[in-house]
């Protein structure tokens, strides 16, 4: 997949405070790209730079092969965005809010009904958005980003304020946009579980520095393998493995977890335990969740092998 967004060595400062440090990213075309990072890590600043809302200090950003600084309007014509909380004219109806975007994008009037239907707001189209709940506003914000049928959607925390059903609806919508309509979706979120269920690729940002970028599978491959072991005497098993220079990060009542560097060590562990006369009930490779990976990365970024 060719990159639709290319960021190379992007740095940005607010006054004397540097918030982005040589950030380089490539977002493949047609991907659903998750952009993760704790609060203050530089996600929204990156998104604002991508949309030309902040001026980048060098020509580090290319979208659709064009420089955002010189081709801003041409890029924005093909890009829909939702930045943080949705910006809505609260004294106007959803229909009027969408009409303002539609006229700016010069798209077909019929699209208003389509996007309202997609986000489930057809029945409330004439209601003032000031009377909307947070979730309804969020859904309208996504509808606004979809006006003009943009090839690229940049969504900053699109599931903010949504209930579980709403979150699921947005997840399905994003997947459908990506898989059935060929859109590229760049989404930042704090909901790691949601990101894990949705994205094909992701990047992790911490203190303005990129810790990881790639596919979910690549992220898991980079993580040290852990083996969950259950025996008839877990404490004795732990002692045997420690003596054989294995690291035991965790022991619970039922299992012990052993860090292994390579696959063939699993076989060695099994033999060691059997030779000592222990009964081995379970040897299971433990897949760390994205949440665990994220917290281990952002807690101690120096440990990450990029």
């Amino acid at each position, binding site marked *: 997949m060719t990159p639709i967004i290319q960021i190379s060595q992007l740095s940005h400062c607010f006054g004397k405070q540097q918030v982005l440090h040589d950030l380089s990213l490539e977002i493949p075309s047609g991907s659903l790209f998750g952009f993760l990072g704790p609060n203050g890590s530089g996600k929204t600043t990156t998104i*604002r730079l991508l*949309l*030309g*809302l*902040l*001026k980048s200090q060098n020509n580090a950003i290319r979208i659709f092969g064009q420089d955002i600084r010189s081709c801003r*309007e*041409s890029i*924005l*014509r093909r*890009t829909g*965005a939702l*930045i*943080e909380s949705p*910006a*809505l*004219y*609260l*004294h*106007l109806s959803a229909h*009027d809010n969408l*009409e*303002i*975007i539609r*006229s*700016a*994008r*010069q798209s077909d009037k019929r699209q208003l009904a389509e996007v309202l239907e997609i986000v489930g707001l057809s029945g409330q189209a004439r209601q*003032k958005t000031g009377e909307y709940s947070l979730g309804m506003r969020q859904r309208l914000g996504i509808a*606004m980003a979809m006006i003009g049928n943009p090839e690229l959607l940049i969504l900053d925390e699109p599931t903010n304020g949504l209930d579980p059903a709403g979150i699921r609806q947005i997840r399905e919508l994003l997947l459908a946009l990506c898989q059935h309509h060929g859109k590229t979706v760049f989404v930042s979120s704090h909901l790691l579980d949601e990101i894990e269920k949705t994205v094909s690729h992701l990047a992790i940002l911490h203190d303005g520095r990129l810790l990881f970028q790639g596919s979910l599978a690549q992220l898991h491959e980079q993580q040290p393998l852990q083996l969950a072991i259950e025996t008839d005497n877990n404490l004795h098993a732990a002692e045997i493995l420690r003596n054989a220079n294995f690291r035991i990060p965790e022991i619970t009542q039922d299992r012990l977890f052993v860090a292994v560097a390579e696959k063939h060590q699993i076989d060695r562990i099994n033999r060691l335990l059997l030779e000592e006369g222990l009964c081995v009930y379970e040897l299971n490779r433990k897949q760390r969740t994205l949440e665990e990976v994220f917290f281990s990365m952002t807690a101690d970024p120096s440990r990450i092998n990029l």
Partner: protein
Amino acid sequence: MVSFLTHFTAEIRKLKGTRVIWLAAIAPFFVVITAWLAAFLNGDRMYVRGVNPWIDFTGHVLIGWTLFVFPIYVSLLSALFHSIEHRADMWKMVYSLPIPRAVVYFVKFLLFTAIVFFSHILLWGMAESGGWLLGIARPSLDFQFYSLHRVLLEGCSGCFLAGLGVVAIQFFLGFRYSSFLIPAGMGLLITMTGAISRSWPVSQASPYLWAVSFFNSSIDVHNWQYIFILLGIVTYCLVGLAGKYSAPDRI
């Protein structure tokens, strides 16, 4: 051009349900109704029989409008007009649309001017209608036997043109500062200062007084100071252009 027109239409849509249009109508109405009630209730003492009553009535409307109401109205209008974008941090949405930033600025600038122009049309129309109504409601004042159409029309036009300097300055303040208080408060303060210090010649340097200075305290067209129209137009163009380049990108 298409972008300019479509964006202009979208900007008009944003005014729907706001108090901007109400204010634009109420401000001239307030001045005309005050002059009208004064004439209706106290006309016999205010107007000399045999002299065209439109002269004083037009003077009350135009001087009342230009000295106090117009600069205060423009100050409040600028704060209200820009609060549409400032209130819900709309700038990030506006600037993520494929519209040139210059178009965003100048469409707003021209729409703001058009609203002020609309108020002057209302002022003229309401003053004409008010005088005509006085001719019916109080025939003893003789409004029905006279007219002052040209002076009223030229006075309203001159007031609008001389006031363009304030329009541009207040537009810039509203665009630049997200706080409602700064454009409204500054406009109010400068207007009051100007009204108090009006007898000092130096006060005529204030663009907030140019509309009233244009009339030179008289509705005699021969006394009118057309230099203030020129100053208003030049200031409007300069501040309008400078505002685009000196205002930070609103995001």
